[in-house]
């Protein structure tokens, strides 16, 4: 692993971070636009931002109220 240069490191990790960031931002946009959520919005905002990957997923699964 010593043979990895810094730019190689970045090229490895950046796509992963971009994906997670995209998911987080989408979740936040949906949260803001949602009229009603299950549980307080601010709590979901914290969960989405703090809990990596599973936070946004939990919001999409359980936080939104259909209809």
């Amino acid at each position, binding site marked *: *692993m010593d043979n990895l240069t810094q730019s190689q490191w970045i090229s*490895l*990790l950046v*796509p*992963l971070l971009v*994906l*997670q960031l*995209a*998911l987080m931002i*989408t*979740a936040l946009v*949906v949260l803001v636009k949602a009229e009603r959520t299950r549980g307080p919005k601010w709590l979901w905002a914290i969960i989405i931002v703090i809990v990596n*990957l599973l936070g*946004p*997923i939990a919001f*999409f*699964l359980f936080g*939104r109220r*259909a*209809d």
Partner: protein
Amino acid sequence: MSLSLKMKMKMKMSTGMQKWLVLFRKEWLEIVRSYRILWLPIAFAVLGASQPITSFFMPDILASAGNLPEGTVISIPAPTPPEALAGALSQFGAIGLLLVALSSMGAVSGERTSGTSAMILVKPVPFASFITAKWAALVLLASLSLAAGYGAAWYYTETLFGSVSWRDALPAVLLFALWMSFVGTLTLLFSALLRSAAAAAAAALATAAALSLSASSLPFEQSWNPGRLSALAAGRLVASAASPAGGQTAGDVWLTVAVTAIAMLAALFASARAVRRRPADA
């Protein structure tokens, strides 16, 4: 006479097909508008990418964790490329299946509770179409997600550890896709049988876990057991993972595949029957 009958049958077939496509499009639209089309593939991609990355940096992580006496030599053998890819499959087999089950656990029971199934099923649509359209959308979404996750795992494995031949990688992912579709089908079945969505997800995952556990720990021939599929998939990549307990040959892979396909058909049949018997909650 026979010509007009044929025409009539063709007409009937085509309106049946049209209705099925309308139902399928409705399911897919829901997948898109509920953002499942976004988060499920991303979750799989992140899972798939994390696995090779974590095993690549594991020695570093352990070393920086400290608590080790001076001079300790950590010797974790670096995984071979196929092993790294098989590791991603095992992630999909745990968290991936959980996400698939959670995302489709209310497929039927949710529509019954909200009353939307009553709105659809008073229209002249076959009950089987209602179920199979849901099934097709579910399997398509799961397959897309698996493709995204496996693609990511493959790319990172290739970059960090070395290449894996597609001759090994492709059969492995196909076997795993079948296993995942099977678990998705179980979720659909339990969602048609039970009132609670959470119970449907739990029942499907418990059934999958029981089959899988039975395949890996019971010492008799289990070619009939769909629970063998994930091990068979890993076995395509890493020979030693094929049959931890029994000494099964590759010859009965097709038998397992056939049994799984028949079991899925039976589950769809039972789901359609459950919807026919109880199209809506009172």
